[in-house]
């Protein structure tokens, strides 16, 4: 049994984190997922900025899921001003999100997560023995980026989203090439589901409270009520009544917990468990073929669920492109007013909540952002307690590796988690 596990620089996660476990008298004595990535104080620096700058500024919280920030920000503003973006503009936003999910999921499945299962340091090392697999992953990822580039101008921090819609919308013909590519991607995603389902998973089922958006007739991206498998069912506007952020000593990120029941779980597993019936028939069939039940409680299997969501994204993207007709205007008109707006959208890693208060001049007076990773932090730590306790007799190196793997299963985005407001200044 190890005395301690110490991973100072967690590899293959987005951002900077460390992992510490201590053991005493044959038991786990302490677990810390430590986030030492320096805070960047987005909520503070948003104050005084114009309402139509928030999405471009907050997208810089995370280079891996900029669309999520842009979507949560513009929907919160639209909520504040009492407008709703509908029709083809709404569909284009879904398409944009499909692109980000494909890109982000392919990155995680192939480059960050799979090497854990196959015993490599990373995808580049893995490519030496499995060139076709890594190549498939890279091409899938590229197609996700191509969607974002077409609609947004570039893959990282795209420029085309605005409050009310877009600066410019594509013609139907612009999608021709992409549609061909997406058909390939759909096959590749199906292969990905089969391949990930064939990996070996540690046995580890937990009784989580899963939280995700739920929309009455689609798999959730930008809209829905926040629900859970343990009775939560609220409008996004009620988020602050039910969730609270806590500040702990070992982390530069706030832990978000549910006021009533504490730790909870957001992300692909939660979405899948709460929205299985909204997946496309092809994605549902792939899940069944992979032997995955409609609810899954093993975090290590999240790699299969990301693959299923990737398949869904390809399907959904093809549907949107097929039904697309160029809208008359790229954006609906916006009249800012003094109000508070709320939005939650489903980032690749889970629910991303934004709240903004705006004054009569259209300037931001207050901002709050709760990213998925700060919501999952407590659950990750709980998992590590249970996992390490259960597998305490594994050889040290093996236990350490599996603990790291458990953390990576959440696809934590540490850049996202450390954006927050509070600070203590050391003078230079």
């Amino acid at each position: 049994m190890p005395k301690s596990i110490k991973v100072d620089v967690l590899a293959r996660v987005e951002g900077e984190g460390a992992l510490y476990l201590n053991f005493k008298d044959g038991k786990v004595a302490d677990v810390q997922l430590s986030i030492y990535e320096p805070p960047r104080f987005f909520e503070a620096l948003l104050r005084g900025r114009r309402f139509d700058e928030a999405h471009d500024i907050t997208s810089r919280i995370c280079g891996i899921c900029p669309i999520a920030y842009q979507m949560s920000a513009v929907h919160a503003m639209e909520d504040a001003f009492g407008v709703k973006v509908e029709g083809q503009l709404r569909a284009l936003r879904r398409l944009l999100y499909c692109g980000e999910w494909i890109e982000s999921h392919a990155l995680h499945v192939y480059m960050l997560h799979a090497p854990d299962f196959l015993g490599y340091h990373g995808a580049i090392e893995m490519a030496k023995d499995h060139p076709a697999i890594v190549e498939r992953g890279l091409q899938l990822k590229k197609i996700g980026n191509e969607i974002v580039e077409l609609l947004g101008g570039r893959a990282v921090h795209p420029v085309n989203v605005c409050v009310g819609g877009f600066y410019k919308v594509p013609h139907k013909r612009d999608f021709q090439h992409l549609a061909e590519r997406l058909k390939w991607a759909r096959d590749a995603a199906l292969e990905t589901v089969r391949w990930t389902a064939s990996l070996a998973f540690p046995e580890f089922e937990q009784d989580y409270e899963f939280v995700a958006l739920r929309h009455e007739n689609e798999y959730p991206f930008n809209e829905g009520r926040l629900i859970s498998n343990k009775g939560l069912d609220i409008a996004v506007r009620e988020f602050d009544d039910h969730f609270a952020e806590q500040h702990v000593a070992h982390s530069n990120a706030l832990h978000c917990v549910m006021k009533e029941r504490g730790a909870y779980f957001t992300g692909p597993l939660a979405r899948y468990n709460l929205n299985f019936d909204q997946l496309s028939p092809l994605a549902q069939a792939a899940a069944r073929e992979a032997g995955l039940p409609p609810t899954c409680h093993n975090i290590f299997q999240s790699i299969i669920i990301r693959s299923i969501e990737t398949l869904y994204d390809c399907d959904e993207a093809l549907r949107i492109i097929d039904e697309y007709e160029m809208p008359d205007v790229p954006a609906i008109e916006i009249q800012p007013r003094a109000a508070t707006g709320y939005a939650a959208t489903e980032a690749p890693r889970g629910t991303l909540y934004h709240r903004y208060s705006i004054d009569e001049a259209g300037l931001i007076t207050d901002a709050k952002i709760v990213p998925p990773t700060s919501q999952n932090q407590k659950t990750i730590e709980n998992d590590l307690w249970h996992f390490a306790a259960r597998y305490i007799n594994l050889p040290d190196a093996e236990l350490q590796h599996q603990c790291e793997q458990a953390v990576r299963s959440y696809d934590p985005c540490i850049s996202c988690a450390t954006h927050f407001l509070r600070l203590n200044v050391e003078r230079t």
Partner: protein
Amino acid sequence: MKKIRKLKLAVWKFASCDGCQLSLLDCEDELLAVAGAVEIAYFPEASSNYVKGPYDLSLVEGSVTTAHDAERIQQVRKQSKALITIGACATAGGIQALRNFADVEEFTRIVYAHPEYIRTLSQSTPIAEHVKVDFELRGCPINKQQLLEVVSAFLHERKPNTPPHSTCVECKLRGTVCVMVAHGTPCLGPVTQAGCGAICPSYNRGCYGCFGPKETPNTASLSQQWVQLGVNKEAVNQAYRSFNAWAEPFRKESLPDA
């Protein structure tokens, strides 16, 4: 044939969003070729194999915002033959450098739970304010083609070809009609360094300055033009205060009395 030692590449992260280093992984068609040409010796986001320094080339993303990072960048410099900074955080302090303009007292008055848990400096500063930098690649985010060009130039010991002209020139090259002339849309293109390929104007939007100030930008004249287009002076100043706010020409032009 003499065996050539592969050059060792390291990728470091400071305060940033990860977007610039992600651009390397976004080179889906070239990544494996790059990995064949250099030894990727330290790149935690991509691999858990940490090869010890020294390194031939270090790519540094992010700005310095903590005392610990101010120390760490010295270590990185010591271990690196060449050091290239990638992205606006590293070259100009990034969006987080907006704190540099804030009254620190005002920041500290903002309510916090346990300030003693957090350590941060009052300023976010570019890497070049701390150590010698061999080349700065601009952008928020960087352009991945430019990144490949810079790495390849380094491998072949030549000067990278990254044009210093303004975004306007890229609009002309792309055949985009000037949004300021044609539609009266305020645009930072005339004072912003090229590199992105003039994306925004091609989407009917004014440039918002991701690549920072070009050489000797005439910001005063552009600000005047914006005012003539009906933008109030405060909003003009704010426009310079984004991802490259701490770069000197933008910093100066953004001041209320500029």
